[in-house]
């Protein structure tokens, strides 16, 4: 293996480079997300037929599933960035984790609210202590803890590292929390299902859903890059290169 083939990756450890790349990439992600979501919503809300069991109520799926997926993916990203930051003492990795956490928390909130709005016509009540909703709620608490701990420190470096330790403890705990909640809810009520016994999804539904998943991911990327720029400026406001970039 050529030693230099991985050299490009080190450039991402340099704040000016990452700041510039983030600025260049943001519009691409933002526009592709808008385009994908527009097509996905057209397919999902207009052309696809109503579900044979749930009528038009199932159409919440096009935002509920992508936001639930993002909420979990984002916690993984926060934990991975935190681990990189702690192990290699890479300050930029902490900036990425700090930038990702509020976005993850907002999508967790969105998954909870849409799940609850979907639950009302399906279960007859806004909130059921269903395994997935409960896990999402605890995930939201974990995000709150991470954000609150990072901000509680006056100095960035300590806050970053303390929050990173918490993120790693959280990510070890997350599977245990999830399975304990699944086990608990199966004891109390049996698992609730959005789809009937057959979990098969019609193609006319699946394609818009996939488009929305990719669209939400692009949206997440655009928001994340923007927030990374903010975090870099916050941390490097006294660096010489900042003045050059801004003039």
């Amino acid at each position, binding site marked *: 293996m050529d030693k230099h083939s991985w050299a490009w990756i080190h450039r991402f450890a340099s704040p000016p480079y990452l700041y510039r790349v983030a600025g260049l990439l943001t519009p691409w992600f933002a526009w592709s997300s808008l385009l994908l979501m527009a097509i996905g919503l057209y397919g999902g809300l207009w052309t696809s037929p109503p579900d044979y069991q749930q009528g038009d109520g199932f159409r919440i799926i096009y935002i509920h599933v992508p936001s639930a997926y993002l909420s979990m993916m984002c916690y993984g990203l926060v934990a991975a960035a935190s681990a990189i930051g702690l192990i290699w003492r890479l300050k930029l990795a902490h900036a990425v984790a700090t930038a990702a956490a509020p976005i993850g928390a907002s999508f967790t909130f969105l998954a909870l609210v849409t799940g609850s709005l979907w639950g009302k016509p399906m279960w007859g009540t806004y909130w059921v202590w269903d395994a997935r909703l409960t896990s999402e709620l605890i995930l939201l*608490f974990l995000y709150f803890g991470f954000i*609150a*701990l990072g901000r*509680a420190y006056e100095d960035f470096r*300590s806050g970053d590292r*303390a929050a990173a330790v918490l993120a790693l403890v*959280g990510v070890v705990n997350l599977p245990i929390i999830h399975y*304990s909640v699944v086990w608990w809810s199966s004891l109390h009520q049996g698992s609730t299902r959005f789809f009937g016994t057959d979990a098969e999804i019609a193609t006319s539904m699946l394609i818009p859903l996939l488009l929305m998943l990719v669209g939400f991911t692009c949206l997440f990327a655009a928001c994340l890059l923007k927030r990374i720029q903010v975090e870099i400026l916050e941390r490097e406001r006294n660096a010489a290169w900042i003045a050059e970039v801004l003039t």
Partner: protein
Amino acid sequence: MSRALSAIVGRDLRLAYRHRGELATPVIFFVMVASLFPLGLSPRPELLSSIAAGVVWVAALLAGLIGQQTLFKSDFEDGSLEQLLLGPLPLEAVVLMRVTTHWLTTGLPIVILSPLMGLLMAYPSEAMGTLILSLTLGTAVLSLLGAVGAALTVGLRQGGMLMPVLTLPLAVPVLIFGAQAAAQAAHGEDPAGALYLLAAMLVLGITLAPFAIAAALRVSLES
């Protein structure tokens, strides 16, 4: 090394004994929280016995965590934590000893008092053994988790309220399995599964938590 570690345990226990008034606070808190439920709900024995396991468990969880907010505070402020960090002993072993003494001084009294709370909550006396066993395993895991939260917030002036916010979501599995074991025993079911899972969490906690606690203390000491 074991002599030095037992000296630390001895010092912590002596310190705890000198401040025994403070030690009673979490235990009193535990008894009080559990007594609030009959007042807030209704004293009907059939209602109380149906929620007893959960109430005793939630009260033990809150009392344990709140008693732990200041676990490293005095050592942090008087500089002895820094001495331990610089000393020859691995910090991981030192914090494990520290958590052990904390459990002996707060977790164990709560476990010992739990049958009394079970009695007040009309918990069936034939299931009391399971309640005690589940609390013994569970409070030990909670001591480990709480120590992570306490270590992360020790350097903060407003760490008091933050520490339970960080720790409570992580404590959810302990509460679920612990309260479930106690409830299953009360219904005459076999609680072995939940107890084994609690024991597994304790083993996992003893293995991993000392590293997290030590890392958190290093972060707090650097700042």
